[in-house]
């Protein structure tokens, strides 16, 4: 039985194919079209999923869209009408697509896919809940999904048991934590829907000066984590900006204009909203625990990507275990929707062992064989060295130790926003200059952005205060006390971005200014080659931790094909690129004198 789950038209469209309950393939459309957060109909992702499964659309038994288009349409209509006439401008702006495409979803899907079979529409939060619970390792768990806005619901919780998810309660739009967070993202001058991570990265440089103000003026937060926003300060129901004049007056100024310098105030604001978010999430988790009495918790939805809060839930809430869907945004909805049909709709049995999840390391995307890579390299006259399988870990470990920055392209692409060691850029975590260097010379982004460490699973607790796996880089944990470096008197006086210049631990490149790290633990079975690389690095250089950042540059999606990887490599200051068994070194790139093909160079393969 083949089920295709899809999400599109909001952000991050994606497709996922589930066969007999197993996820065969899942990918975001942006990776194929190279348009970040592409929200178009995910035709490329769908084609890839079908290809991976070796089937055509006629072999599909169900197509599932991750939410009910009609409910969403009504919400939009009602919201805009209740804010008329000021809402009319954004209404008109949003209207045409909604009218044209969204309400005719079923016809659209049938037509695009040339598909005659059944099309199913679970609710947005059902899809999210399904994406949180069904792939989790638990037979029984509470779930909590928090995100921007889907239909009327923005936050929901409930219980997953065997093959069912059951939603117990919901918080409705516009009282949304996701949107509150986005409003501040906007206010601190970052892009809504993609700058959230930057704001989170900025937070540790600030002090929570505005936390009380947010809690007292902007929202009414109850003990159980539910809250009402004071809509006098927000603009997202009526306008195209997120905050209004009153909001600006409250926080003493207009939003930071995007390209301008970050000030201490921006950092303070970022830290304040971060702490509020944590507070809300902790209270919610507490409440969910009381209501459900389960010892396991599953999280999904955009806000669940806030790994700082996740780490605190793990440490401070009564739950014993937490599992987080790595494709926590809308993309994950495609996966959830497909699993929802298999389990809840078709009532198939679900058995888990309580330990191993069904996400398969989230390595659910395209893979390129050595033969394919070789063909690409030779066709484009790119010189390479062919490494034997068993030589890869040592060769790359040596290069990393020599302070080289490595593009690492292996196996299947990750599903979800994080690179987990198959489409990654790697560097030496022991270096004190690496963070700034890699940000400015390779990612071309703000130097304050922290990097994440990959650590081999068995050694994680030697370096970080963590007693469990974090395979999807969704938990933040403090670096161990004994590895930290005490700040000198001078250094303590530094504030704002100057703090970046201090060395904070023996793995400074991945230690944030507050001594935290957003770590990925690497498992021997989930990703053998990546594991061997780090183990080799540990063996030779006594450090089981390396820097892992996604293989892309600012503003671009993570690379998908060898061609994407090569272009990204040549357009940055990466030193080496390893694709499959092929090592390409910058210094070996010879000047082309003849045979420069000006027209073919950039044709994708």
């Amino acid at each position, binding site marked *: 039985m083949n089920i295709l789950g899809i999400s599109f038209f909001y952000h991050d469209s994606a497709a996922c194919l589930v066969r007999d309950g197993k996820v065969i393939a899942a990918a975001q459309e942006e990776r194929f079209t190279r348009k970040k957060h592409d929200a178009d109909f995910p035709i490329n992702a769908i084609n890839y999923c079908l290809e991976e499964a070796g089937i055509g659309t006629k072999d599909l038994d169900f197509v599932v869209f991750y939410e009910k288009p009609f409910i969403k349409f009504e919400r939009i209509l009602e919201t805009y009408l209740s804010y008329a006439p000021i809402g009319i401008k954004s209404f008109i702006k949003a209207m045409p697509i909604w009218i044209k495409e969204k309400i005719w979803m079923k016809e659209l899907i049938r037509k695009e896919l040339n598909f005659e079979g059944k099309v199913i529409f679970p609710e947005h939060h059902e899809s999210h809940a399904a994406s949180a619970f069904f792939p989790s390792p638990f037979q029984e768990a509470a779930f909590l999904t928090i995100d921007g806005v889907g239909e009327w619901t923005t936050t929901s919780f409930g219980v997953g048991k065997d093959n069912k998810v059951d939603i117990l309660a919901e918080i409705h739009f516009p009282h949304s934590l996701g949107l509150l967070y986005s409003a501040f993202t906007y206010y601190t001058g970052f892009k809504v829907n993609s700058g959230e991570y930057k704001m989170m990265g900025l937070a540790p440089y600030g002090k929570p000066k505005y936390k009380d103000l947010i809690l007292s003026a902007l929202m009414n937060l109850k003990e159980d984590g539910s809250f009402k926003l004071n809509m006098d300060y927000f603009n997202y129901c009526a306008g195209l900006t997120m905050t209004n004049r009153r909001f600006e007056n409250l926080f003493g100024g207009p939003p930071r204009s995007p390209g301008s310098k970050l000030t201490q105030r921006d950092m303070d604001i970022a830290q304040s909203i971060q702490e509020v978010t944590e507070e809300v999430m902790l209270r919610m988790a507490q409440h969910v625990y009381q209501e459900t009495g389960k010892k396991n918790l599953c999280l999904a939805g955009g806000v669940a990507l806030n790994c700082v809060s996740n780490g605190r839930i793990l440490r401070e809430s009564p739950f014993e275990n937490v599992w987080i869907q790595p494709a926590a945004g809308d993309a994950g909805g495609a996966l959830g929707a497909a699993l929802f049909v298999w389990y809840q709709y078709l009532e198939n049995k679900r058995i888990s062992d309580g330990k191993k999840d069904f996400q398969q390391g989230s390595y659910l995307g395209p893979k390129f064989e050595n033969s394919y890579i070789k063909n690409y390299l030779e066709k484009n006259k790119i010189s390479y060295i062919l490494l034997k399988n068993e030589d890869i870990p040592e060769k790359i470990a040596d290069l990393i130790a020599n302070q080289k920055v490595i593009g690492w392209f292996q196996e299947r692409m990750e599903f979800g926003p994080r690179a987990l060691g198959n489409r990654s850029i790697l560097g030496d975590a022991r270096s004190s200059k690496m963070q700034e260097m890699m940000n400015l010379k390779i990612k071309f982004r703000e130097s304050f952005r922290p990097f994440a460490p990959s650590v081999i699973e068995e050694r994680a607790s030697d370096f970080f205060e963590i007693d469990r796996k974090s395979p999807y880089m969704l938990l933040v944990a403090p670096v161990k006390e004994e590895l930290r470096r005490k700040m000198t008197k001078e250094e303590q006086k530094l504030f704002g971005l100057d703090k970046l210049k201090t060395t904070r631990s023996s793995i400074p490149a991945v230690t944030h200014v507050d001594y935290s790290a957003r770590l990925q633990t690497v498992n021997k079975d989930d990703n053998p080659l990546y594991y061997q690389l780090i183990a080799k690095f540990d063996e030779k250089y006594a450090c089981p931790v390396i820097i892992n950042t996604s293989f892309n540059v600012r503003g671009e999606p993570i690379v998908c094909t060898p061609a994407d990887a090569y272009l990204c490599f040549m357009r940055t*200051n990466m030193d080496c690129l390893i694709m499959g068994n092929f090592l390409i070194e910058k210094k070996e790139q010879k000047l082309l004198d003849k045979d420069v093909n000006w027209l073919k160079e950039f044709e994708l393969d």
Partner: protein
Amino acid sequence: MLKHMIEHLDIFVCPACGGDLQIADDEIKCLKCLNCYQVEDEVPLLFWPHENGIVQKKDVTNMVKKFYEKTPFPNYEEFENVGGLIQKAQTGIFARLLNEQVPFNIRVLEVGCGTGQLSNFLGVAHRIVFGTDMCLNSLKLGQEFKKRNGLERVGFYQMNLFRPIFREESFPLVICNGVLHHTSAPFSGFQSISRLVKKGGYILIGLYNRYGRITTDIRRSIFKISSDRFKFLDSRLRDKNIGELKKLTWFMDQYKNPHESGHTIREVLGWFEQIGFDFVNGIPKLKAFETFSENERLFKSNPEGNWLDHFLVQTHLLFTGSKEGGFFLMIGRKKL
């Protein structure tokens, strides 16, 4: 010091006599005429005056040089790192397309690079870029940016385009944007730099268009008689989103330039023909009603268009082009 030049010394020649150069103790010496050239802030001072050392009163090169030494163009005001540079370059489709379509692993020469933003941008990707200009103050800004951001493949050199410091046929791509119309002899300038292009290589020339420039010319006259009180007539000078320094730089470059000339499509096609280049592409496109697409293949051959096309295209420039300063760009390919 001088790492970039040392690595590529094979293509350098003495601007005075064309002899081979030698680098010793951070001084550059010609092995033939024994001229010595200094280095300042890591920028080799290889400028050789146009009129063979005889300083004339109305030497355009000198006048323009003085002007740009005072007002380097364009400025780096709004950003300080590569991220910012990329962001800026991506807003204009031309720089983005160039970056996407100029092959890696080749040498690129930019003539009259000013402060070197395009050179630095193209050098972020794996290309060897030579940014040259006669204005040292501009070059220093480019050099500083390069250094701060570790763009090792880019080198800046002081050079007079009438007195090249490179061997003939050294580059598969030569870019010269917004420069020749500030010289006393645009055609011989073009001739001079076209020699540096390899056979089968490309040249990219950006010039003021005679018709596209008319609006600017009128404004300049108005400013002159009104002692600059009517600055608001220029949309860039009105724009609240543009910083003051940037405005001043634009104002000076557009309205206070000591020397400029206007050119036509026909004229440049003539240059190409005379020197042995085939026309490849133009911005705007030379065929009327054809538009330049977002994914335009810059180096793919296009029709030249006839006089009517050119008339229509240039009339269009007259009405629309003044925001960009009435520019047009032509790409030619050196015959094999």
